[in-house]
């Protein structure tokens, strides 16, 4: 546990440069500055590590880095996506709070590999403490001569800037993030072209999640194989899981991929006293909900969770006990997507509001017999037809909630009240 991003978490002032360097921090970056590591080496190591994008999509990081046109002289950018907004996730916040230097080093390494001399860290608007921590760390790094132009005569340049968002979930979508970074309204771009070709200010850009960048230095320090072997097949390394909900000790846990969900639940102190596990959303609010049985039988890695019928996503485990009304939960989730849709494309702009209104009507006791079919159908009409994944994110919970807990919805429609008597 706690071997990569959280390895210093129990130390005094884990965020300081001295703590970071004392545990081997910036050793990879210094090697690069001395010219001892080539971009090709780094990409090979990353590929070997099996590191997959920690923001939710799970795209192999090494492969993503190799997509950047490396042999041209045009300005390129690396961008860190710290706009952590998915309900249920809070891991990047703690990386920024407790290990900001790993993000800086990871981004600098990314910049070197992809020949991008400028990086931006886009931090969620509400993250004031992480923002100041990161800014302070950035100052330290500059002061120590780890960043800047032609760093200690190495001819390697990397400048890093922090950008604070303004509180829009959509800006976590990488192209909306880029638009926002350019000073425009945060709305996703259509793809192609992808950011690796036309990104920030029209230049090739790679956007990675905070945890992905933060994992890179340790992977390169200890080797891709070491990292890979911490986890299981197709899910190399360890991963931060944010366990929230009806557990005794909600927290972020950095654990090897593939550990049983049961063990993770135990780490979080288990379900509240006198309650039973009812449902789990394993990867953040946009991933399908699982029943207690499905959850208890699964391991925490990409393939296992997929086999169980959901997705690992950003590793945001929302645990619900038997006091939970699933109609109310889905209504709350639907409201979130309705509220956060950017409004640019039709299915999401119109569909998320429709979904929410049907659910709200059911909650108000005005549900009708065809409503569940309608919900399912509206959801599937949004799915796959939008510019970005927010539409899919809004649609997916609907399908799984209705599939796994249909009797609760039918009960609510019929009786105008929740089947769960003591729901809170």
């Amino acid at each position, binding site marked *: 546990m706690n071997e990569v991003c959280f390895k210093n978490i129990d130390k005094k002032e884990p965020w300081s440069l001295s703590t970071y360097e004392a545990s081997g921090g910036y050793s990879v970056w210094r090697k690069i500055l001395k010219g001892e590591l080539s971009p090709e080496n780094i990409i090979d190591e990353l590929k070997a590590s099996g590191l997959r994008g920690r923001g939710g999509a799970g795209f192999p990081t090494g492969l993503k880095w190799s997509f950047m046109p490396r042999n041209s002289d045009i300005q390129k950018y690396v961008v860190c996506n710290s706009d952590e907004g998915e309900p249920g996730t809070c891991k990047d916040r703690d990386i920024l709070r407790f290990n900001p230097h790993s993000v800086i080093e990871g981004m600098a390494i990314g910049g070197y590999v992809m020949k991008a001399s400028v990086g931006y860290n886009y931090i969620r608007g509400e993250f004031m403490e992480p923002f100041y921590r990161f800014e302070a760390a950035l100052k330290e790094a500059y002061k120590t001569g780890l960043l800047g132009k032609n760093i200690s005569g190495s001819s390697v340049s990397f400048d890093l800037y922090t950008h604070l968002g303004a509180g829009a979930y959509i800006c976590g979508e990488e192209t909306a993030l880029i638009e926002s970074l350019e000073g425009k309204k945060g709305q996703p771009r*259509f793809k192609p072209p992808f950011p690796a070709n036309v990104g920030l200010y029209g230049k090739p850009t790679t956007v990675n999640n905070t945890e992905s960048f933060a994992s890179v230095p340790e992977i390169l320090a200890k080797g891709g194989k070491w990292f890979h072997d911490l986890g299981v097949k197709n899910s190399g390394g360890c991963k931060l899981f944010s366990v929230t909900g009806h557990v005794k000790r909600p927290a972020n846990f950095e654990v090897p991929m593939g550990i049983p969900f049961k063990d993770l639940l135990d780490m979080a102190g288990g379900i509240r006293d006198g309650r039973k596990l009812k449902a789990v959303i394993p990867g953040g609010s946009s991933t399908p909900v699982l029943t207690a049985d499905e959850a208890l039988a699964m391991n925490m890695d990409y393939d296992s969770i997929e086999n169980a019928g959901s997705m690992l996503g950003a590793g945001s485990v929302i645990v619900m006990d038997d006091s939970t009304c699933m109609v109310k939960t889905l209504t709350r989730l639907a409201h979130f997507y309705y509220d956060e*849709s950017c409004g640019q494309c039709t299915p999401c702009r119109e569909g998320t509001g429709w979904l929410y209104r049907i659910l709200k009507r059911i909650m108000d006791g005005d549900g009708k017999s065809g409503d569940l079919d309608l919900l399912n159908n509206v959801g599937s009409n949004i799915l796959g037809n939008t510019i970005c994944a927010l539409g899919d994110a809004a649609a997916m919970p609907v399908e799984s909630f209705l599939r796994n807990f249909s009797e609760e919805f039918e009960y609510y429609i019929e009786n105008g009240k929740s089947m769960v008597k003591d729901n809170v």
Partner: protein
Amino acid sequence: MFEIEIDGKLVNAEAGEKLIEVTDRVGISVPRFCYHEKLSVAANCRMCLVDVEGAPKPQPACSTPVSEGMKVSTQNEKAKSAQKSVMEFLLINHPLDCPICDQGGECELQDVAMSYGSNVSRFNEGKRVIADSNIGALIHTDMTRCIHCTRCVRFGTEIAGIMEMGGTGRGESLKIEPFLNEGIQSELSGNMIDVCPVGALTSKPFRYELRSWQMNSTESIARHDLVGSNINVQTYKGKVKRIVARSNDSVNETWISDRDRFSYEGLSHSNRLLKPQVKFDGTWKEVSWEVALDFCVKGLLRSAGESNSMNSLGVLASKTATLEEYYLLQKLVSELGCENIDYRLGVKDTKNTINLESNVKLSDLEKIDHALIVGSYTRLEQPMINHRLRKAALRGGTVDVINSMQFDFNLALNNENIIIPCEIANLLASTLKVVLESTNQDVPEELNKLTITKSATKIAKKLLSSDASVIVLGEHVINNDNAKNISNLVAMLAKNTNSSTLNLSKTGNSIAADIAGFFPGKDGLDVNSMLGKDMNAYIMFDVYPEYDFHNSSTAIKALSDKNSFIVSMNSFYNNNVADYSDVMLPISSYYETSGTHVNIEGEFQTFAASVKAPQESKPAWKVIKVLADLLDISGFNYSDSSNVLEEAKHNIKQGHRAEESINITDTNSVEVIWQPSPYSIDALLRHSDSLQETKIGQINKATMNSSTAKHLNLGDKDDYLGVPVVISSLVANNCVFINANKSTPSEEQA
């Protein structure tokens, strides 16, 4: 070029093309709302989703680039279901009350819903309602109907060059609205009505007038500028009800200016002259055409002498006639043995004015890499030409300006020279000197004494280093004391820098007037000489003296005092015309006669009449023909205006060539540039109420800087030459820039 398969058919496609461009070209119909061929791709409506083999999700045809071997279905289950889903989403919050919507019958949403919509709505929740704001006199908004396709937003940023509409809020609260509460002010704003696929933005003057299917549509040409934008004139029961753009890539693409779109309103203004009238003993009497024309003939013969040597007849026309009208009137006059004929009413000295050819195609204008604009605010004065220049600028072309006032251009200026009118010639001469010296040519003696300024060097360098440059000469210098020098200097600069030239001073249909030979003959008098002499008779063609003459009071005085016999043909009633005329003949206005407009490319654009001239007014060319018959002049046996055009084409006249000489004179007093405001340049525009209500229509100001104001002893509550004073540092010192929607000055200009 490679092949792709669409709906089982092999079609050719070019690398870089988007799927929708291919389907449009080969005639496969893919529904769409946000896509517009002249705007950037937004891919936000999702209506054009199609199934591309290998792609897990349906792909939008508008943003998907073609690739070799691609297999696409626009019709299979996956594509259809995606399209129908999107259609349903678009309709849930859209009012389903087409019968009370002004767009009904010409609504893209309605049309597509017929094929892709369901006949029953599954949406039983409350619909979204958006409060409207008043965005000006031209566009009516009904934003509850908006489907957020952002065509109007993209039109504003990409074509009009000012972002007036934008999206505020997010999700379902996304609203398309103007950011500022000042309304829409672009001179091209009406195009937003054309691009809006639904009834959110509709024409305010046309609101609730008619359904599109009730109207007839005729192709025509707009004549308020040098482009001659292609339009469709929509009419109902003999009245023009609406004008919309007609695509012609080599002229106006798919856009037209607000001036061209809304001026038709003036046609039904109560001020139209509708019956022939004759002055008996100082009072006007409505008479029949026979009586009126007989009165004309007798009056002309009595006052101006024999029918073959009418030396004391003067013939003046405005700049808005058709080529046929200019030609026939010129022919009539020359048959009468008269050479006193002119259309340059607004020119102070016809011997000292611009004489420059235009030699660049409109479609090439957007490909130039550098433009030098001299004496013009192209954006408001020639909006469609400015649009091409803006396109060139967006492609990386640079634009330099020599003006006497700083204007709000919608394109980036490289180098803006704001100088007093009398310095323009000097700056151009100095620029020419730099050009000649740096290309190792002889510098003419007149230029030797000139000192080379930094500005001149900059301007010259840019012209010399550009491969495809153009020098644009505008209206502001027609009455410059060095107008002829400026014109010659521009011609010489162009010749020595391999630049094209564009003469924007030939406004209205004046190019046609030149071609028809509507200028004084060898021994003939020009406009100012006529007014200064005792002419016994005049034929005045659609002249409105207080607007058309350079100095209205002098002209009106000259026409009123001398007791001349004056025949006026007008489409609008005018008090001054009634005062000095003896006969008033009601003639057709725009869209009421067939004819030809000659644009800046020299392109003859012929149009048919869209409606009959109202009441007893007649197409002017017919009036001239009958007048000729009654004067016993032969050779006027035309049955159709196309016969006139054929003959005119065989008798094309060359305007006089300017001699290449430079002789710059110096002035020291305050200089005045008088430029009619954009919606006041002709009688029809002045009678178009909605246009007059707009911000542009209201422009009426004499702008000067504080030191000039002090010198003239004026404050910002005073009038100067009848125009309200505005004190601003945007104007060159010692210069007053007047942009007026009122008559030209009634006092002698300083």
